[in-house]
């Protein structure tokens, strides 16, 4: 994300870090940059930028998928990155959110979408508490296998419960109510230069069957809210308690942190965001079945968080984009997609173990460590 914003600043060579440079910018410039960036994200599916736009699959649809990955990664980051709990069954919460929407809007009731989404969040959160309460006392590695089991239990329950639609899944999930405000035209690059194409448009917030862009906009808005939530909570007592627990659980407890309670909180919040993401997915897909909630997805989610840099919200967003976007962009690899993905994971782990965009603390620590190493080597003064 920040890669894109860095482009204008990147022209003047400087030894200062990007972060410092942004920090020292006048407030007005910062706001303008952010607005430009937000507008760019908003228009992205319609710009049809060559090379970036996926050839094999609809770009709006792909962007929506990437957006759900981003949302999931933000939620999982609270669990894995902040609280340090290894969760291999996150897809379970994603499924709970999606199925809550499916059951309450189509299968067994016909409640309004606006009402159902908060319910889905709450149900996912409750399922997080139910899973976490007995298992968060066990050790980290055990937690991994227990959560993995949870993901499978959820999927198998979906397959085998006729009440939940069984293997057939749930179809005819209604679209959210929309308001038709204005049309946004797209760009056409077929002449080599961008031309505004007024015949291909997306209507701002009309949730149709064949236009995924409004769903992407919806997801973008929700990501914004979740990010804000993440920033606010992380920079409070709660965030500090999570980090302390991750760093040294016993010491944290002896400093008055009720670690179990905070771990459970992280689990519940993570689950809630996973549920929200699942609810969005169900809304857009209109049809859900257990096939969409395979165990593999949990692993992809975790990969997104770790590849990006667990603990850094911007990092995990980058990770989610990598995991969600690249397989679609490089559909030509077709059969080799999983193979290439596996290789990429290994290479990343070996050559960039801290993730693509590690948390600032790691960077800071590394810098300080380097300084220390220089000091230790000889008389060289810093």
């Amino acid at each position: 994300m920040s890669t894109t914003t860095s482009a204008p600043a990147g022209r003047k060579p400087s030894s200062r870090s990007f972060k410092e440079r942004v920090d020292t910018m006048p407030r007005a410039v910062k706001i303008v940059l952010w607005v430009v960036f937000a507008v760019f994200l908003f228009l992205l599916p319609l710009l049809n930028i060559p090379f970036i736009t996926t050839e094999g699959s609809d770009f709006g649809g792909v962007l929506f998928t990437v957006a759900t990955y981003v949302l999931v990664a933000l939620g999982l980051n609270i669990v894995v990155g902040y609280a340090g709990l290894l969760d291999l069954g996150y897809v379970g919460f994603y499924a709970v959110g999606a199925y809550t929407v499916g059951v309450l809007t189509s299968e067994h009731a016909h409640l309004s979408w606006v009402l159902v989404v908060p319910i889905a969040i709450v149900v996912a959160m409750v399922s997080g508490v139910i899973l976490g309460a007995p298992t968060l006392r066990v050790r980290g590695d055990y937690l991994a296998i227990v959560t993995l089991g949870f993901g499978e239990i959820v999927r198998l329950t979906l397959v085998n419960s006729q009440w939940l639609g069984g293997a057939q899944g749930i179809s005819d999930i209604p679209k959210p109510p929309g308001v038709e405000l204005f049309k946004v035209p797209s760009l056409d690059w077929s002449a080599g230069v961008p031309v505004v194409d007024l015949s291909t448009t997306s209507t701002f917030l009309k949730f149709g069957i064949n236009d995924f862009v409004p769903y992407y906009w919806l997801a973008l808005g929700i990501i914004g809210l979740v990010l804000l939530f993440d920033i606010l909570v992380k920079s409070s007592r709660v965030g500090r308690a999570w980090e302390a627990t991750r760093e040294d659980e016993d010491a944290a407890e002896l400093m008055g942190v009720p670690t179990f309670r905070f771990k459970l909180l992280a689990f519940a919040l993570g689950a809630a965001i996973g549920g929200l993401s699942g609810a969005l997915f169900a809304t857009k897909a209109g049809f859900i079945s257990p096939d969409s909630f395979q165990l593999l997805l949990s692993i992809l989610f975790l990969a997104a968080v770790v590849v990006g840099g667990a603990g850094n919200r911007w990092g995990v967003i980058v990770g989610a984009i990598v995991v969600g976007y690249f397989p679609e962009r490089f559909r030509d690899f077709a059969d080799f997609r999983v193979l290439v993905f596996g290789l990429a994971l290994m290479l990343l782990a070996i050559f960039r173990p801290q993730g693509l965009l590690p948390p600032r603390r790691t960077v800071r620590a590394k810098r300080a460590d380097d300084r220390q190493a220089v000091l230790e080597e000889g008389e060289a003064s810093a």
Partner: protein
Amino acid sequence: MQNLIDNFFSYTITGLTIGAVYALIALGYTLVYGVLRLINFAHSEVFMYGTFAALWVVMILGGHPGAGVGQVIFWVAMMFVAAMAMSGLIAVLLERVAYRPLRKRNAPPLIALISAIGASFVLAEIMGLRSRIVGWVGLDDTLRDYVRNSRNNAGLPTIIQPQPIFTIGGYHVTNVDIFVIVGAIVIMVILDQFVKRSRLGRGIRAVAMDPEAAALMGVNRDRVIQVTFLVGGVMAGAAAVFYMLKIGITRYDAGFILGVKAFTAAVLGGIGNLRGALLGGFVLGLAENYGSAVVGSQWKDVVAFVLLVLILLFRPTGLLGESLGKARA
């Protein structure tokens, strides 16, 4: 429930056979976890390669049903040799490529898990794409029988015809059942003795107990880790042979679920504990079978995981506790 009572021995014996396979795979998880504190997520693939090696060697030797005893013994022996060699090799390779570079860089454990997941994908996909790969080298016609429909099942001819040996509670225990259960226990005992008595085994225990102290005492940690992977791989190879004899069919993604089950078995018994792996494997195999009998086979995996959660709630270190480092192993 009535069905379970009526066919109790049938469910028990078949549960023990699959449990034996779980136990042997679980050993690989337990050993590696003991020395590295790492879930070797790709161990399931090590097993899967073993099943293919066992299958291919029988195909090369022209194995077929109804052969004489001597020939069958030869085939089975070759299955063991091939599967153990293949799995051992893959396991060592895995350690070299996916874990050692990370260890040298002191990467956090989570990263090792990601590397393991990556390696698992790569290994499974190479097997799943083997037809394409041999196609590139132009061997697809020669190797047609070995690679065709590489995303599909691959089946072993029934080289040992199951023969009822004796009957217990209405269930005819076959030669294959006995071979698998007894074979697995014998292999476990050998491993147990190896770890307890041999120099390398002591090294494994020393590293598991305290890596730094072991290094100070002159134990070559890298070598010990390599041996640990090798031993785990060889055990997975043995499991692969038993699996092929009992189930008879494998596939490029056959390892995944089995790996998860075996890891569950390892945790169930107390990870890091060799005897725990054996016990965990058998308990899991039985629980799954009994559970399937009572609530239906579709809940098999659910039974396994619920059992795991229950055990961890009441015995957080598994049935026998964790102890590769401690002398009990």
